[in-house]
């Protein structure tokens, strides 16, 4: 009986302990660990990618001890609110909807989103690939109307619980069948298997997918959408009341933009510069 009590007491202590950073100089940063090239898990179980490197740089700049952990994408925001960790760096767009429940640093990357399709599909042949801001309503509407007939009746795969999904639902919800996946890897497998006609994602992420074996016959197609529903780019998420940490992150990101660290890291991992304002 006593043993059981001890065990329960230990478990309770452990669960209370989580997220008790507040005063100390150490923080826990959560990433998905399944979103290459932004963040992923290597075959030996280590976290790697653009955001993992960037997180280490930011921690150095803030002079804080950081632990980087992997966390399922769909439960990330509730877990942040519950204090399981302090920062989210997981390719998360700063959107109005998320700002209602949490707070973000300034953006550290801007990455437009597109479709990936088979090279001989209609969508691949007939659209341009320029960047379109959804804030520019007229231009965005024109680009979307041009896409609509090409997508009519198609099945499109997208990661669940993402702004990418919200975009598809908002602009093409009546025209296409949307399938949602827990991870981008599952989405990619279904594109390769031909279960979906197209997938939708951030361009850098799609580019990484297409580099894999089995995706030679696929390409990125359609305009690169950003702004609007996609918000202000990708930023580091913190709890709403965590202003101190947000300020610290802001100045660290500012410095990483200014000294070219973000440019260098994004070119290393994605082959393109995704520094905000570039």
């Amino acid at each position, binding site marked *: 009986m006593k043993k059981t009590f001890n065990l329960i007491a230990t478990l309770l202590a452990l669960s209370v302990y989580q997220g008790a950073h507040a005063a100390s100089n150490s923080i826990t940063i959560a990433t998905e660990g399944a979103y290459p090239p932004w963040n992923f898990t290597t075959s030996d179980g280590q976290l790697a990618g653009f955001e993992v490197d960037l997180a280490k740089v930011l921690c150095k700049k803030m002079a804080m001890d950081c632990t980087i952990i992997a966390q399922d994408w*769909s*439960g990330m*925001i*509730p877990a942040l*609110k519950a204090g399981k960790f302090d920062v989210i760096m997981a390719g998360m767009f700063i959107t109005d909807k998320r700002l209602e*429940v949490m707070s973000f640093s300034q953006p550290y990357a801007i990455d437009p989103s597109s479709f990936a399709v088979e090279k001989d599909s209609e969508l691949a042949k007939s659209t341009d690939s320029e960047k379109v801001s959804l804030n520019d309503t007229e231009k965005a509407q024109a680009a979307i109307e041009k896409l609509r007939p090409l997508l009519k009746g198609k099945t499109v*795969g997208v990661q*669940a*619980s993402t702004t990418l999904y919200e975009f598809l639902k908002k602009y093409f919800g009546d025209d296409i069948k949307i*399938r*949602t*996946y*827990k991870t981008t890897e*599952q989405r990619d*497998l*279904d594109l*390769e*298997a*031909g*279960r979906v006609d197209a997938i939708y994602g951030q361009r850098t992420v799609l580019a990484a997918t297409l580099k894999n074996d089995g995706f030679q016959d696929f390409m990125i197609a359609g305009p690169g959408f950003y702004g609007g529903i996609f918000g202000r780019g990708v930023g580091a998420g913190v709890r709403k009341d965590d202003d101190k940490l947000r300020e610290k992150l802001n100045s660290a990101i500012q410095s990483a933009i200014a000294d070219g660290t973000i440019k260098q890291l994004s070119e290393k991992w994605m082959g393109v510069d995704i520094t905000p304002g570039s």
Partner: protein
Amino acid sequence: MDFSFYLIIIPKLLSGLPMTLQLTAISVSLGFILALTLALLLQTKQRLVTLPIRTFVAIFRGTPLLLQIFLIYYGLGQFRKDLQFVGLWGFFREPYWCAILALSLNTAAYGSEILRGAIKSVPKGLVEAARASGLSYYLTMRLVVLPIALRQAIPSYGNEIILMVKGTSLASVVTLMEVTGIAHGLISETYRAIEVFVCAGAIYLTINFLIIRGLAALEHRLSPPYLRKRT
């Protein structure tokens, strides 16, 4: 307590109920037919028959259901060309049929063991009496052994059906929007995990409560008066 929030999410969660019920009903029915077939086939002493069945049961009972769904959906998806060649791709292309297949095979594996045990539990004397009265093996099975065995299997088979209801929650990993899949979507829209999961849990609890009551009534009906529980 924010009741208006519950009023918003409950109808949304209930929109996944038909999918959950369909997956359960179809896979439990198909699974039961397969389970009964396997249990009857196991009555022979032919190793050529029993060995493959025992292997099948060992594999599907010994591995997680999630893994089975993954393997059947994403795993077989990589053999698209071969499946197209044998004309089965139309089936395996659809997440719905892949989920049904995985759930049915899984429940058939458990079910066949439940039914095998139930058949074994029928008193030998009854079988001998039936045979001595001139009933053939087939008639003994149909008229004596199976009615008793199936009735005795109801409590443990009920467990299996309840597990299946909960097992359908894994279908969301293959893009099917049943109750749990919708719950995940709602959480990402509202960021309120507790309320959504509590409601989803209540839905499963209600389904299972009804199943338990239904099976209890069935068992009562099938039992001779001296075996009925007084209520």
